[in-house]
């Protein structure tokens, strides 16, 4: 490391994006006067090939040991410029950016003030750059095995894909059988195939696959480690299992409609859940429609009520459960077939049929004279052997008191009651509705905040079987990345301990969310495991003597930045 900083500063016009508001030439001239700056230039597009070449040539010609690019947000082009520096032989961490586009040109209109601000932003980053230290890009090895939690459709699919790619997989299932919630169903929409016909072969393949170890009646009790090298303790298995990646496929709980007492579930034999209806429909296939009788009579009027436990802010379930519209279409249609004399009415607020073939299936249901009435049922009470559904037909704008013999509540999904336990075990964040949180709902729907842990199926949010399987396959392929690669990149800007200064107070151990800080029993000083450290800096901010520093954001760097902002 050269003791004297030789800094090159590059002010980007970004076409007119920056140059229209900021006097880039003036900023470059100013930058040239800053301590440690060897060369300062402005250029039309720094991120273009010629722009990057300009930097690379300067590094060689002027023997630069730091580079500052003043352009857009580092969240945009930091990798670009670090890469450019690296190609010219500079440690990538010696390249730093000043954000004069998003933070300056685009948010201010006064050219004088914007130029002035750009100068100080550059000065601040130059001051930091002068104190930068090179960091190592790091990789760690990976245990080439995976573990899947949950033996439902999602878990089995993910396990199978990973196993097929040639890696051993442990499939941990809490109950005594595979199949999950789907095993509770009879027929699936929109094909009306029997679940048993689909689930049977899948289960069979999982159970007989040489790469899959099925662990029934077990549960994960502890997870230690990090991407590439997790140590998973499973109750019932003696040794902790070493794996490189985890897939969470723990599924959901079915909403219990007793939480909506106004619907009379549990009070009237006429009111049942859709899952109970599924069982009756299965039984009816075996023994005839008599199993649908209520109070000893076959129902003449059957009502389905949608969105029970879903789309309900008061329950903390603001979401749509995504399957109820379709299974209601399926069940109502099957009832029409089993009881041709019966009137079947579905009460809904919106019908959502987005899956492939779903709208067509819904059309079929209506053609079979399932009547859809828009308007939710507010409460249910008794009238003789029947029940009254009190609600409003919102299209007619009239309240109704609808008499029915049998009412099916389309109960939705909710996070598993034990989701919090797994969440704290894995430090896996959950969204406000309680489902496990993906990193980004659109762009990274199977990744979690914990590297190497991926989500599949309804533990991440309600979904139907095709979506579950698609996500399980996505989770499996994401989990395969570290396994196939054999190594994983580790954060370079980690916290480091100066053991000479550390007094061993252990506050860093308390505040580290990743268990990366640990006290060395022999020397009574803190040690940071760089593989676990994510570089958040909580330890460094807590350490009073700064025996721990977060690299790339050290106190002298930050304080120099502060000082330079003031001129």
């Amino acid at each position: 490391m050269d003791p004297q900083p030789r800094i090159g500063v590059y002010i980007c016009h970004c076409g007119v994006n920056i140059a229209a508001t900021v006097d880039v030439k003036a900023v470059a001239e100013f930058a040239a006067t800053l301590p440690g700056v060897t060369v300062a230039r402005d250029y039309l597009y720094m991120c273009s090939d010629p722009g990057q070449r300009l930097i690379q040539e300067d590094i060689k010609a002027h023997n630069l040991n730091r580079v500052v690019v003043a352009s857009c947000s580092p969240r945009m082009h930091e990798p670009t410029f670090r890469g450019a520096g690296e190609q010219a032989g500079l440690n990538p961490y010696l390249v730093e950016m000043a954000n004069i586009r998003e933070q300056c040109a685009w948010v201010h209109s006064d050219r004088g003030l914007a130029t002035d601000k750009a100068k100080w932003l550059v000065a601040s980053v130059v001051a930091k750059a002068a104190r930068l230290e090179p960091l190592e890009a790091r990789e760690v090895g990976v245990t080439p095995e995976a573990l899947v939690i949950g033996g439902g459709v999602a878990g089995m699919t993910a396990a199978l894909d990973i196993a097929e790619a040639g890696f051993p997989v442990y499939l941990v299932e809490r109950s005594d059988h595979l199949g999950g919630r789907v095993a509770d169903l009879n027929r699936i929409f929109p094909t009306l195939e029997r679940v048993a016909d689909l689930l049977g072969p899948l289960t069979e393949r999982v159970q007989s696959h040489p790469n899959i170890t099925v662990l029934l009646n077990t549960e994960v009790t502890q997870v230690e480690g990090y991407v590439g090298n997790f140590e998973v303790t499973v109750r019932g298995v003696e040794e902790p299992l070493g794996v490189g990646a985890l897939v969470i496929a723990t599924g959901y709980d079915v909403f219990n409609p007793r939480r909506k007492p106004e619907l009379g579930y549990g009070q009237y034999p006429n009111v049942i859940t859709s899952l109970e209806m599924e069982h009756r429909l299965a039984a009816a296939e075996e023994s005839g429609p008599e199993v649908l009788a209520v109070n000893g009579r076959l129902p003449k009027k059957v009502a389905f009520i949608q969105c029970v436990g879903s789309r309900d802010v008061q329950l903390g379930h603001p979401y749509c459960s995504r399957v109820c519209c379709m299974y209601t279409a399926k069940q109502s249609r099957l009832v029409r077939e089993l009881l041709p004399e019966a009137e079947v009415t579905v009460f809904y607020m919106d019908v959502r049929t987005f899956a492939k073939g779903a709208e067509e299936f819904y059309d079929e249901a209506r053609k079979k004279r399932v009547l859809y009435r828009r308007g939710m049922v507010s409460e249910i009470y008794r009238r003789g052997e029947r029940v009254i559904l009190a609600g409003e037909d919102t299209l007619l704008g009239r309240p109704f008191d609808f008499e029915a013999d049998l009412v099916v509540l389309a109960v939705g999904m909710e996070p598993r009651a034990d989701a919090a336990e797994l969440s704290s075990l894995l430090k896996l964040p959950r969204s406000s509705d309680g489902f496990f949180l993906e990193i980004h709902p659109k762009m990274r729907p199977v990744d979690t905040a914990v590297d190497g842990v991926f989500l599949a199926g309804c533990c991440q949010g309600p979904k139907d079987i095709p979506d579950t399987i698609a996500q399980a396959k996505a989770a499996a392929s994401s989990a395969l990345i570290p396994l196939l690669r054999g190594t994983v990149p580790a954060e370079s800007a980690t916290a480091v301990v100066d053991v000479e200064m550390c007094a061993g107070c252990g506050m860093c151990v308390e505040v580290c969310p990743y268990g990366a800080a640990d006290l060395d029993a022999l020397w009574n000083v803190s040690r940071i495991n760089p593989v676990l450290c994510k570089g958040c800096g909580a330890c460094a901010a807590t350490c009073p003597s700064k025996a721990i520093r977060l690299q790339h954001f050290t106190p002298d760097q930050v304080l120099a930045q502060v000082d330079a902002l003031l001129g």
Partner: protein
Amino acid sequence: MAEKFEPKIVAFLCNWCTYTGADLAGTSRIQYPPNVRIIRLMCSGSVDPTYVLKPLLDGVDGVLVGGCHPGDCHYQSGNYKARRRIIALKEIIKNAGFDEERVWLRWISASEGQRFAETVTKMTEFLREKGPNPMRQKWAV
């Protein structure tokens, strides 16, 4: 007064939420006063009290610390730790004779570009009203 007083604000923003929120204000072209100068940190939980104290003693008029909303920290709980640390810091400087209202802690998410711009605008106006940090004139600190 010959010249209108313009406050200087130093902002320590977490990389994942507030810094990204500030970027969004930029890409959305939401205008705000140029009085704020941003320093990017990885997490509000890494803001050391000294980082806030140093500019205040040097005469900066306001310090803004921006982090993710509770529950949303990229590092799980950095913002909760920041909250306690800043509350302690503000109580200390208030009792040491400083104007603790010059230090603002705000949760601003990556999607709240508008809120970031509004926060800077409000803070700038608030500090204009308040006047310069007396430390601008004090060399004996």
